[in-house]
């Protein structure tokens, strides 16, 4: 299997300004020299505490952010400089209720994003029907998204992320706020993507979910990788993945 994501010594710093008259600049290291690779068809997990650098890493991989240093390649292309070669072939889903047009129906949201992904008319309508069925929104497809529950908005987000049938799907805490059935549906979608040979990179705080889904994972703490491997390798004698995770994170914190 070939590597579809290759990250080498990746760093990302943010600069913040503080003060009114005498503005001071402060540099924060969000990602601090991480390296990993993801093979085609894998489900790969990025785990870590809030603020560990997972979302920043995903943003660099999805061409939203420029790396400060290091190399970040997706499908063989640099995410900063060669992004046009990458964008039609990937998509991403961020957890929560953002990322949809609430004044539009689910169908109109999907139609609009299908246009932005340059799908042709015939292919577009067929694809929209397929994914509306997949995320179980067909019955409410023509209602405005602002009338949807949190879980339905999240399902619409998932549908939007699948609109271009991406080779790699990036998911940042996709099950946050989903009810158990919604979370189950999402896990089924991920498993189906794996069967189709798609690659998924996901971040989650639900360790049993990560253990169930991921072929391999890395644990990030304060911008650095503290463990990498299969769930069994990361457990390394611990009874559960959670025990191993706590040991790794607290071990670094001490």
């Amino acid at each position, binding site marked *: 299997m070939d590597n579809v994501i290759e990250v080498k010594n990746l760093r990302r710093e943010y600069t913040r300004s503080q003060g009114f008259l005498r503005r001071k600049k402060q540099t924060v290291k969000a990602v601090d020299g991480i390296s990993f690779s993801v093979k085609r068809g894998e489900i790969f997990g990025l785990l870590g505490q809030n603020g560990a650098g997972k979302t920043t890493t995903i943003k660099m991989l999805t061409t939203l952010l420029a790396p400060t240093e290091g190399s970040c390649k997706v499908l063989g292309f640099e995410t900063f400089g060669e992004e046009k070669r990458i964008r039609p072939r990937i998509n991403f889903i961020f957890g929560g209720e953002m990322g949809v047009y609430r*004044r539009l129906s689910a169908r109109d949201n999907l139609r609009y994003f299908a246009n932005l992904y340059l799908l042709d008319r015939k292919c577009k309508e067929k694809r929209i029907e397929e994914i509306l069925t997949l995320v179980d929104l067909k019955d409410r497809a023509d209602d405005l998204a602002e009338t949807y529950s949190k879980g339905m908005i999240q399902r619409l987000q998932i549908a939007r992320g699948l609109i271009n049938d991406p080779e790699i799907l990036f998911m940042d805490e996709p099950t946050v706020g989903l009810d158990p059935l919604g979370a189950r549906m999402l896990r089924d979608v991920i498993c189906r993507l794996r069967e189709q040979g798609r690659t998924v990179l996901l971040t989650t705080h639900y360790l049993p979910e990560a253990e169930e889904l991921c072929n391999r994972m890395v644990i990030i703490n304060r911008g650095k990788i503290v463990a990498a491997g299969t769930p069994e390798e990361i457990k390394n004698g611990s009874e559960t993945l959670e025990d191993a995770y706590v040991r790794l994170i607290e071990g670094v914190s001490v």
Partner: protein
Amino acid sequence: MMAVLWSTMLLQMRKSFVRPMFRFCLLANPILNTILLYEMFRNAGEENFMAYVVLGAGLMGLWSCICFSSAGDINRERWSGTLALIFVAPASFPVIILGKIIGNTLLSLLTLVISLVTAVVLYQVPLTLASPLYFLAALVGAVTAFVVISAVIAYLLTLSRKTELYMNCIEIPLILLCGFVFPVTVLPPAVQTLSRAFSPTYAVELLRMAVWGVKDAGLFWQKYLSLAGLTALYAGLSLLLARRIDRRVRISATLEVA
């Protein structure tokens, strides 16, 4: 590209019209501006109220709508998490922005109609449009100029999260500098030089010339050429900005809320 432009225009019109603030700017603002300007101009010796009252109120409303939508929409997209999505979509981001601006501008032209209707219904004042064909030509030039200047502003505002502050800062100064409600010749000479750097100044002069009646066609087309030249310059600037900003926003991380 046309599908992206068209669907973005329609989306923007729907999104804008359902916002109460936009409806206020679009529907109530021109009525209030017409009343205000009529009271200011009724003893000013100007007999054709079309030039300053209707046109002034309509243009003020048009600019407010454009300003608060084309510029403010960047921030709304940012807060709703969709700015990042449209930015990384394969469709060209400048085309998406252009679609939004054209949608807003076309919808905002309603302010001119509302202002006209208000003046007719409330005051029954003399309203003359002496050169309708020239007016149509000037209107096309004006809309293009507003679209292009809005594009420049919209691109610049992707660089910062303080969008609301900036759009409030640019609304009134442009109304004053570009002579929406009074001729720029009443401004101090140094300020007039600044006015000449803004394409809407020429657009407003052309519209007003057409309202009064174009007596010197050469002068009209000369001003039109200035408007076209300045608009082309802005268009070039917006293309340059689009390229630079594409890199800059990903370095400075301003596409999303921190």
